[in-house]
């Protein structure tokens, strides 16, 4: 296996400039697609680059980006989290479970994160201690959450989202959505955790080569469990933001985000085999999805075409990535 184990270490090491440029391209090449996509959007329809549209794009971008970051953590440790969509909906239902006044917001966050931590622990426990495949473990928790949610709401959630959460999810500050600002802070903090901390280094080692990780004395199980908890918590957070954006809640808020977040990560060059990936990549992948959806809309093409394009993009992106990996691997 010539797969590089560490990424940030490799970047920090002084290497020949051409090699480092290639390494950068290999990892962040997808980011370069963004200006192209935005430029193409401007050509296709001038409305795309209007300040209004761009600020709305940011608004829709935040929830997906937050989930995608969590998904990246899990994917780097060779996992997959299918329960994120269900977690989002559960957080949203929790958001309306109380009286709907601002004084509940702290309680809402506390309960949502408590549930998220429990779900993350369960996922991580099943994957590490019981060696259940991540796909199946998170599928089971997804159904479990769905069942509890339906039982709790009796099928029809009611109640209001507190106004503060509404501001949080849909409000703008001089055209810049609050949720985008929150995302920015979150992304920077998590990027430091993943790419510049000891814990982050361990994540890459565990995902890149579990045997090495064991020989290093890293407690892989704990690292993997932590990644699932991070993913669940971010999903809960995204669910709260999304409920604020939508304004009303049903049992299916967040449906499709499990798929979209995986697509975002794959497009953003987070490896499905684990050991590779970056926060920036996940963000770029999420941006690609949101921008393509928006452009298709502006083109006046039937909305169903979005799904067809999304499906094609995920397969092609993965194919592109697989080619490069096999080419560099030998």
């Amino acid at each position: 296996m010539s797969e590089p184990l560490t990424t940030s270490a490799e970047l920090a090491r002084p290497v020949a400039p051409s090699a480092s440029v290639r390494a950068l391209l290999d990892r962040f090449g997808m980011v370069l697609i963004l200006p192209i996509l935005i430029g193409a959007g401007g050509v296709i329809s001038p409305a795309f680059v209007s300040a209004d549209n761009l600020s709305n794009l940011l608004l829709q971008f935040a929830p997906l980006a937050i989930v995608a970051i969590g998904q990246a953590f899990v994917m780097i440790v060779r996992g997959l989290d299918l329960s994120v969509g269900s977690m989002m909906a559960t957080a949203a239902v929790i958001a309306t479970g109380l009286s709907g006044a601002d004084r509940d917001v702290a309680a809402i966050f506390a309960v949502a994160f408590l549930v998220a931590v429990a779900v993350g622990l369960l996922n991580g426990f099943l994957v590490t201690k019981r060696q259940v495949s991540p796909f199946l473990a998170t599928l089971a928790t997804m159904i479990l959450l769905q069942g509890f949610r339906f039982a709790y709401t009796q099928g029809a959630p009611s109640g209001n989202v507190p106004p503060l959460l509404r501001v949080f999810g849909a409000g703008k500050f001089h055209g810049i959505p609050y949720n985008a600002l929150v995302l920015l802070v979150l992304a920077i903090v998590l990027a430091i955790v993943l790419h510049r901390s000891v814990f982050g280094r361990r994540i890459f080692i565990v995902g890149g080569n579990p045997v090495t990780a064991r020989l290093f004395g890293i407690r892989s199980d704990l690292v993997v469990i932590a990644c699932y908890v991070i993913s669940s918590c971010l999903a809960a957070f995204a669910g709260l933001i999304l409920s604020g954006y939508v304004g009303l809640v049903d049992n299916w808020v967040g449906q499709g985000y499990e798929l979209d977040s995986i697509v975002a990560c794959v497009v953003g060059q987070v490896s499905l085999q684990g050991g590779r990936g970056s926060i920036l990549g996940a963000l770029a992948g999420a941006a690609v999805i949101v921008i393509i959806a928006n452009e298709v809309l502006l083109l006046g093409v039937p909305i169903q075409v979005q799904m067809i394009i999304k499906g094609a993009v995920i397969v092609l992106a993965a194919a592109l990535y697989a080619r490069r990996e096999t080419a560099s691997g030998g």
Partner: protein
Amino acid sequence: MTGAIGIRMEMPWWLRSHAGLAGVIVLIGVVCLVGMMVSDRFLSFNNFLNVFEQTTDLALVSIGQTLTILSGGIDLSVGSLISLTSCLTSGLINNNPDRVIPVVLAVLALGTLVGFINAGLVVVLRVHPLIVTLGMGAILQGVTLLYALGPVGRVPRSFNFLAYGRLYGLPLGATIAVLLCLLIAFVLRYLPLGRQVYALGDDANSARLVGLRRTRILMLVYGCSGFCCAATGLYLAARFGAGQPYTGVNYTLASITPVVLGGTLLSGGKGGVIGTLLGAFLIALLNNLLNFMDVSKHYQLVAQALIIILAVSVYVDRRGMA
């Protein structure tokens, strides 16, 4: 470790190859026991026939899913393919009895073709089946919604026979599912191509080294899965009288549960379709029992999730010992 292997060698083939079935049979027994205590009607022949009938759709789709999982892959396009085929069935037949046979054949061919395309993409693009079929699922759902945004067409009354008809007292659809399952079980056990599916799923690298033709095996496996989805689509169109564009959504992930319950390893190479059939039956039986107990539909999901968690934990333990 060697001791465990030694014991396995001494077991007769029929026990060795069906060791995975033990779990699901025990669980069915437990459900029956509880059911006996809950209501004396639970263990009646009629109730079993009902449960058998309710197993049809899940059994059909998960039989195909078993094959893809056995080969070391997975098919996540099943839900969308079911939606598409059920919409096309009712939309194209459109209450015209003369069109039933050509449309049924065309739909089955289409399902198989989609499976072939999945396999082709996996081979040509060298992308994991998870991603290929996920993408294919999104594409097919888009196509389905382009074709119909709501319930479309109608099927003639005679076509309902597929879903509600009884043949010698047995529900027709479920009987077809069982026959299909037995046929595939036979192929998997006794024909070279069937054995190759296991070989590929157990160790793709060795399979390549001994010269197995991966493309051909994957074509068979995904083609079969596509065929089973089309059959499910036909069945659902017959049952509901019209195809709906979201009718298959839940089957994508639901189709994996019976496979796992039936003792097939998600990593491939071990298991079989008989277990899947019993797994599907177990789920229908469990839902039936919860109905008898007057448990709300919502908690049925919880129960199903708990059963999955229970089952996978137990099976993994067994593999760890072997």
